């Protein structure tokens, strides 16, 4: 066993030398061919084919992403509504945002969502994935169970949790029955409790999705690293910190980015749990809900909603840049 482990690196070195030698030989062969001959065996259709093949995808992206984005930028500088094209009004929409009380709620709530939800989304699914890895039937069952909320409709999820958390729901009934509280906890009627309840549902929903991503990453960690850690006397927690986490680092960065975007743009859970009103007084409104409120319906203020969309785009862009910079610093 030890002998074969020692010889393996030598074989790999030999193989890579052979590969380099082959590449050099091929390069010499091609350079020996006169230039004209070299070009002549690549036909015109070969040159055009890649462009033609990528054209449908390019058109779809161009029309439904770039044109739509450009149109949003254009609309942001107009007073257009859904039915009236409107006029150019400069940066008036952006100035109006400053005085919009709902924008203040929305920006605070969406930012809090990122701060509170993202750390859980990065760590908890990794722990979960670590617990359910393996090919036994019971692990299959747990993986499926944890993934179940992902395939459930957000509306159904919202309704389940609304019924669980309302003043006569299961959670409050239990707390009252065991005399832990004297009156129902206002999970769905207090501004902050409602927001944290929504965050809890978002985490519950996202666990399974990110768990699957982590399972793939875990499968790529070399088992010998765990064996080495065990030989060094690491316990399970130390293995997780010193082997699993570093091994999944690129995936953790990916999950962090994905969950940051999702958290800042959260809509479904908050919409359903607040009956579309953004909580009592609209104080639990998020950025996506505000855009939806302003930008849909027959009397929609599409210009204003577009300006809000640009703000969201800029904030998410800045967050991603910060995360990217942090990642590079950590890599060093």
């Amino acid at each position, binding site marked *: 066993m030890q002998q074969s482990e020692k010889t393996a690196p030598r074989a790999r070195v030999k193989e890579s030398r052979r590969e380099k030698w082959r590449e050099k030989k091929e390069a010499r062969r091609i350079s020996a061919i006169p230039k004209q001959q070299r070009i002549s065996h690549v036909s015109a259709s070969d040159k055009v084919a890649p462009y033609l093949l990528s054209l449908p995808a390019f058109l779809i992206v161009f029309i439904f992403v770039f044109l739509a984005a450009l149109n949003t930028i254009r609309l942001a500088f107009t007073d257009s509504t*859904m*039915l*009236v094209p409107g006029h150019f009004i400069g940066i008036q929409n952006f100035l109006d945002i400053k005085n919009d009380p709902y924008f203040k709620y929305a920006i605070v709530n969406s930012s809090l969502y990122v701060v509170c939800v993202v750390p859980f989304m990065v760590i908890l699914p990794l722990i979960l994935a670590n617990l359910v890895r393996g090919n036994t039937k019971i692990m299959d069952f747990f993986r499926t169970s944890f993934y179940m909320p992902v395939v459930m409709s957000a509306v159904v999820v919202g309704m389940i949790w609304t019924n669980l958390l*309302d*003043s*006569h729901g299961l959670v409050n009934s239990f707390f009252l029955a065991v005399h832990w509280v004297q009156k129902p906890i*206002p999970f*769905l*009627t207090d501004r902050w409790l409602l927001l944290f309840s929504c965050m809890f549902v978002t985490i519950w929903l996202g666990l399974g999705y990110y768990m699957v991503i982590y399972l793939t990453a875990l499968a790529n960690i070399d088992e010998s690293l765990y064996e080495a850690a065990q030989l060094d006397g690491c316990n399970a927690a130390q293995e997780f910190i010193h082997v699993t986490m570093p091994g999944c680092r690129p995936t953790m960065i990916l999950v962090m980015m994905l969950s940051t975007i999702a958290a800042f743009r959260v809509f479904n859970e908050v919409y359903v749990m*607040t*009956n*579309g*009103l*953004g*909580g*009592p*007084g*609209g*104080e639990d409104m998020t950025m996506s809900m505000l855009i939806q*409120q*302003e930008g*849909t*319906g*027959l*009397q*929609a203020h599409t210009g204003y909603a577009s300006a809000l969309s640009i703000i969201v785009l800029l904030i998410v862009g800045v967050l991603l840049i910060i995360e990217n910079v942090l990642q590079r610093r950590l890599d060093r």
Partner: protein
Amino acid sequence: MKSQIMKGLGVIAAAAMLVPMAACGTNSASSSNKDSLKGTVTFETWNLKNDKYTPFLTKAIKTYEKNHPGSHIKWLDAPSDGYTQKLSTEAAAGELPDIIDGGPAVVYPLAKAGALLNLSKEDPSAKNLYTEGAWNAVTFHGNGMQVGAYGYPWYVNDGPMYWNTKLMKQCGISTDKLPETWDEYFAAAKTMTKNCKNVYMSTMIGGATDDYASAGIKIMNPSQTKYIFNTPKAVKHLQQFVDLYKAGGIPPEALSATWSQQADFFQRGSIIAMGGSAYSAAGFKENAPDLYKNLAVGPKISDEGRSASVSYDSLSIAKTCKNPKLAMDFTRFITNSKNQLEFDKLSSCFPSTKGTINDPYFKKASSGSDLQSQAVKITMKAVTKGYSNRPPMMSDADGWNYLQQQAALALQGKQTAKQALDKAVDFANSRLR
């Protein structure tokens, strides 16, 4: 002299020639009327293509096409989810269906954008076919809009107030006379908060225009150019809800409750009263039989002696319609007394055509002594005498939500009742422009 005779003969000859020409003109006009009822129009309804309504609408369309050879009605149906979004996209692209189904909240923005025919101009006699309340509900004014009716009224709905008499007795409220005015309502609520804990009056929070209009507060000025529901009377009215909330008479969930949640609260015996439809009784009988035994029904709370919350559906004609005469004729047909009656039987709604409510069907439905018959009787009175207070621009989801959100903040003590109403009025006025 000879030339004068010749001139006279010439005039007579010319006149003689003109007579048949005039007759030709009349003939050609009538034939063009018939011709104008030929062709195809698209008729888009809202969530009506299903087992319940499809047979009726298919039959009605076939009958019309049979009576008007050469006409073709293409019936389309859109799901309720995203219906307004669909219409707005179609309107923006100039591709609206010829006949559009929708309530005043859908009709108003389309009319304001100049996408609909003004029926007061195009079909003035239609006004005589429908009840005054129904015609008023589709008639819009103000803000650069041509005054007129922009839809043929179709089905109408409203409902009574259901009361849990068991809870009323438990909380010391007399069941001999159910509260009908706001003073009676708040007096009963005060009695309730003194005698009961964890029982609430209703989920009404002063977050809907109905709550104000029914207290005699004007929502808009007569020319529909400005919202005015922030008067001292309105502030006092909202303050009564604030006081009731502080006294524990309104559930916290009501601050952002939906209609279905209101029904849940009522069915599990947490609230004393709720507004429902004329046919809600059957649902209570099935879902909450114990509650049903203790139910009483009364008119909706109003200081005006009539309902301010009647809701109307209508059919409008798009300006882009290529066969407007056919579209108008068909819409008159589908909303005529006979067809409305048949539709109302299926949909548990009420008619908007004059006199149809006196049909034996409605008389029979309201003649019993059971809860549902009483509810139908009250609703019949409501739809006949009542009106829609909901300004179409306000009943758009945003305006509606905004008022509820501001009222909720006032109830929580985060702002005064006056601040809430001032903000709601400012917001609504900004939407009018």
